[in-house]
């Protein structure tokens, strides 16, 4: 076993932190307050090379391995980038772009991947439905083939980036009787007749990411927009899980490092009863809890990333363990960080309040903690 990172990886991580602190973090609180998507920061992520980090250079990507890509996510969190932007990045790069890259034709790759890598276009993935969350096979959206077109009907919900997306990977049933084997995936572009989005949902946290419903009403899309073959959709959606359990969790780990630094700085400066609150053991305990969570979670997500780099099939039990741990155990440190800041922690002026709200998504998004427990208990 070897847990070391290369010097290049370590330097790259420092560069990302420096970049994010300078270009993105100063804007975070304002955009969170107004629940707005920060197009400029998103574009800068593309310019810096983060959006397309793991794609081959010939498609405008950085050619990085999975571990480095996960490290980038951790670095964004460590720099203080908000959960909304890192979620938008994850939905864009891993749920949308990666699916197109992995399952799309050469023509589809050339058409979409460079624009998604640069951030010129924003992507999203339409999978969840009002009555089909983790139970994907219950999906009701349909895609009926008519000549050289598919006619999409149905609706999606909780779709990250939908209101701002230029392109969406949408899952629908081409064979409604075949349950999960009847699910197919399609590329749907903004402006396609019959495709509309709802108003952005009002969310507790990750507010800079825009989340909404998607509606498909006799939405006609060219047959060549089918990804892979009919019936491949379920497996495609499962493959995003590898990213979901590594790169999408990485910012939560990075944020724990950010919280630790912010809390330590605050604890050194804040004086009560004639001494800095850092001198109180209760404060040290909170700092310790934040550090311990970050250290424990880190190994879990890099294990998933390393296995993916080795070409090993995803170990669903280990993936669910990573998701469950980061989801459920991140709540405590976020709470500790907020309380450590006292009244200030409850106010938007200090970003602990936002981080606490952002953290609440961890046990919900991408399969709730209960779903992870179901997976683990079935596989053990």
């Amino acid at each position, binding site marked *: 076993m070897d847990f070391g990172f290369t010097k290049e990886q370590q330097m790259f991580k420092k560069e990302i932190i420096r970049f994010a602190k300078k270009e993105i973090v100063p804007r975070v609180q304002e955009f969170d307050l107004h629940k707005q998507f920060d197009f400029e920061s998103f574009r800068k992520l593309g310019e810096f090379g983060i959006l397309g980090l793991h794609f081959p250079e010939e498609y405008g990507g950085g050619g990085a391995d999975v571990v480095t890509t996960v490290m980038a996510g951790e670095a964004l969190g460590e720099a203080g980038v908000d959960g909304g932007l890192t979620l938008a990045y994850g939905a864009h790069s891993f749920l949308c772009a990666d699916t197109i890259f992995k399952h799309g034709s050469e023509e589809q790759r050339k058409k979409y991947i460079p624009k998604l890598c640069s951030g010129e276009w924003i992507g999203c993935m339409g999978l969840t439905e009002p009555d089909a969350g983790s139970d994907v096979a219950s999906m009701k959206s349909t895609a009926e083939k008519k000549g050289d077109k598919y006619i999409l009907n149905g609706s999606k919900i909780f779709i990250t980036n939908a209101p701002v997306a230029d392109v969406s990977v949408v899952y629908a049933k081409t064979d409604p009787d075949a349950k999960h084997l009847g699910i197919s995936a399609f590329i749907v572009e903004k402006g396609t007749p019959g495709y509309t989005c709802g108003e952005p949902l009002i969310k507790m946290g990750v507010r800079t990411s825009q989340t909404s419903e998607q509606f498909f009403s006799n939405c006609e899309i060219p047959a060549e927009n089918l990804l892979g073959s009919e019936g491949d959709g379920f497996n495609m959606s499962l493959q995003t899980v590898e990213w979901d359990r590594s790169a999408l969790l990485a910012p939560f780990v990075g944020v724990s490092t950010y919280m630790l630094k912010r809390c330590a700085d605050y604890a050194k400066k804040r004086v009560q009863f004639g001494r800095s609150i850092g001198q109180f053991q209760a404060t*040290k305990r909170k700092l310790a809890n934040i550090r311990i969570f970050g*250290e424990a979670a880190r190994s879990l997500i890099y294990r998933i990333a390393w296995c993916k780099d080795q070409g090993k099939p995803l170990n669903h039990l280990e993936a669910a363990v990573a998701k469950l*741990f980061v989801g459920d155990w991140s709540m405590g440190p976020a709470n500790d960080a907020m309380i450590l800041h006292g009244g200030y922690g409850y106010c938007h002026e200090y970003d602990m309040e936002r981080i606490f709200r952002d953290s609440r998504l961890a046990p919900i998004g991408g399969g709730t903690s209960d779903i992870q427990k179901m997976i683990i208990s079935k596989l053990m």
Partner: protein
Amino acid sequence: MNYEYSQKEFEFFIELYQMVSAYSASHPMDTGGADCEKNIQGGVEKLGQTPYLKLGVSDVENANGLVTLMGAMEVVAAVSPSLYLTAEYSMRLLGRALAKWGDEKQKQAFLNPLISGSAIGALALCEQTVNVDNEPLAATGEKQGSTVIISGRKQFVVNGPVAKVIGVVGTCDGKPAIFLVDGDAPGLSINRTEGSFGYKGACISEMILENCRIDEDRMIRCSEKEDMVSVLRLWENQILTGASLGLMRASFESARDYAKSHKTGGKPIIAYQEIGFKLAEMLTLFQTSQMLAIRAAWTAEKQPREAFDLTLCAKVFCTESAARVSGEAMNIFGSSAYFGANPVEHAYCCARYGESFGTSTELSRIKIGDAALGIKP
């Protein structure tokens, strides 16, 4: 980067498991009965026939130092916590101290028997106040010619009553030292601590040294730059971290197997979501602990400057997880775990030791907090 043990390491773990399990089946070591002491000594000898006791002390073929050691620790602690504690406090505390700071003569005389398992050692670190992390060592050695006269009182010395040689940690001329005292040395009295909550087969004792004499060449010193007590605590914390992994493995696997076989309402209890989810949380804590413990062990070897804080993080997380996992295992077993000898009940009792001993979880958190604040020890 590499997140997997090698095939050779896996093979070693399996051989080790088979050997310890077979021995344990015919030689009870955790019941606290009269034979435990003898059986454990036999168990340590058995371990001496494998590379186990050498790990972390000298090079072992196909092994990756402390990383392999952490995996092997889990295996032994899962089968017999008492054997584990005895072997570890002998080899990985006194043995490592001899390997790191001892001279050739001391290694020949004291280290080799520990590695071979033919002798058991002990390290007496805890003072009467227990805490040596933020209070000075009270035991002292006074030089008189080529003799050192040792006085002091130590508590909770694992292996005290069965140790052939005891490393007494104290000071001489104001500097830290380890005094190598024979188990039957005049001036040394050992009072076995009876009725321990867990580790029922291990021998734990109080120790009083009154003008106990040793030759000067039985004194171990560290370099001026080193903090001997911190290093010893780090090693002890590694031992307790490894123990936690084994206790979690034993608890989780026993509870899982029980939940699959025990039926109520016409179906195995694992089919009930409350039990299935409980096991899922237990496994999550166990696997997370494994990864953190192994990474901390790797860091101790490759990036020692970062090891102290990370080892404390691992120690707190793993020992607290072990207490929780073994407690949940007790609940899954229901009444049957509460009566009579049961590996889950013993694991539950042993898990409590991990949180309190070494650097206690409370003190560990303060130290981790200090590190975050930039406060140097």
